[in-house]
């Protein structure tokens, strides 16, 4: 009986603490928790100091400063990132998310903040193949659930290999286990042109063959967060901060 009473009191105290801390949050600056899959350099990745950095991170941080909210980034695996959004584990996803009609059905998007295209990366020795349609009968890799993977799966004759992280796909390409990798052009450029390990081995072929726009995704109907983010993004564009960031990260 005594134990029961103590337990009751303890739970009462903890519940009241919880409520107090909740109400405190509301008076302070709105904090938005943003999920990102930090395996996608230079858009978002983990640097040597284990900090999440990249174009998207800088962009949203700038937007937050302009619109007066706080952001906290949370590293999340890509293939469950939208499930977590739907389950309200975080408020938004800013992780190089291409705005597609399919995705619009299950989530809401901010105004687009940068546009990119899908590009093909191959080994240096491979010549003559420049379009995805020429890769019939070959193995082409992409990160699972990305627009790159969706583009490849449109060609039935191509064997699509999906990876948890784009870095693993690039590594397999360098090792010769697959013939090509399809990903967003900033990422392709980062691996094939800048990365000291891969720039001697890999190259980009053809031009970006899709036009896509990145947006910040929020749960369907979460207007409060969406408005804040949209306000931030438009201010960043107005002030020209986005051009600086593009120069810094995308070149």
């Amino acid at each position, binding site marked *: 009986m005594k134990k029961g009473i103590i337990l009751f009191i303890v739970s009462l105290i903890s519940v009241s603490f919880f409520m107090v801390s909740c109400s405190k949050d509301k008076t302070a600056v709105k904090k938005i928790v943003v999920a990102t899959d930090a395996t996608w350099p230079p858009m978002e990745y983990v640097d040597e100091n284990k900090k999440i950095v990249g174009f998207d991170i800088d962009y949203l941080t700038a937007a937050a400063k302009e619109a007066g909210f706080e952001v906290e980034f949370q590293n999340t695996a*890509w*293939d*469950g990132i*939208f*499930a977590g959004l*739907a389950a309200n584990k975080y408020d938004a996803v800013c992780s190089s998310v291409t705005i597609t009609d*399919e*995705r619009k059905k*299950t989530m809401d998007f901010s105004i687009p903040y940068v546009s990119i295209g899908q590009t093909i990366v191959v080994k240096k020795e491979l010549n003559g193949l420049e379009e995805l349609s020429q890769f019939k009968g070959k193995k082409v*890799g992409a990160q*699972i*659930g990305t627009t790159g*993977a*969706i583009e490849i799966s449109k060609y039935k004759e191509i064997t699509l*290999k*999906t*990876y*948890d992280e784009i870095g*693993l*796909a690039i*590594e*397999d390409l360098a*090792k*010769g*286990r697959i013939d090509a990798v399809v990903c967003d052009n900033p990422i392709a450029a980062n691996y094939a042109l800048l990365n000291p390990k891969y720039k001697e081995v890999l190259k980009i072929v053809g031009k970006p063959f899709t036009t896509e726009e990145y947006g910040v995704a929020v749960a369907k109907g979460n207007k409060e967060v969406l408005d804040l983010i949209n306000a931030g993004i438009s201010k960043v564009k107005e002030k020209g901060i986005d051009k600086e960031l593009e120069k810094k990260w995308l070149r």
Partner: protein
Amino acid sequence: MAKIEEKQSKQKIEITDGVLIPARDDSSIFSAWRISFYGAIAALVVLPFLSPEPYSHVLKFIIGFDENWRFDIGNSGLVKTFEVTVLSIFFALFIGLLVGLGRISRISFINRLCTVYVEVIRGIPLLVQLFYIYYALAKFVKIMDISAAVIAMAICYGAYIGEIFRAGIQSIPKGQMEAALALGMSRSQAIYRIILPQTIKVVLPPIGNEFIALLKDSSLVSILAVSDLLRRGREYASTSFYYFETYTMVAIIYLILTLFFSRLVAIMEERMKINANQS
């Protein structure tokens, strides 16, 4: 994994992973096995029937049917899972037998080598081994995706199966060996002609159990971009966003497979018992 208890009199191997193998004496209509097995099959049939979108699409995608419900063997996650499981258990049995024999060897070098192998492998998580063989060793040798998966699984399970073989061999009464030696056989002759044939009987049920464990662990190879059941499910979920429906179907298929095979192992064990009692 299987823990083996040595009993001189009964040659019985006890399995701690006992949930996998249905109790023999549980013969009521509503045994746990029946409820789960037929329940899973019912769910597999009823769900796609009740809401074809998305359940039947999920099923088509992960099992590998095309639009007209024709079976497409190259794109089948189910076939890939079987391929990895069967090849792995085959090589694991081979490695296991060698290691088991090595572990009872009197040549101290071989004995030590096999023991070190077992200790090292059992101390490293399978997931880490998979990454290691696929990505780390790729620095020296190029192994294609599915072979890397099979090699890693076989090396890992070879260690566990090796322990089963060792315990199985040691569970054969000493008198058998002594009698064989007394009849003028050499030690190796005695092992191959007298001990091993008896060992097979004892180790078959725990090896069946390992097979089921391996079938479940084969889902780990999905991280190597091997398009098995789980990877197919993840591919479907990540573009369609039907997470609940997709993983429900994947779980049900795995459940049906493991329950089916655990029944087979149980039946096999029963047969062995009958044979043992007759002889």
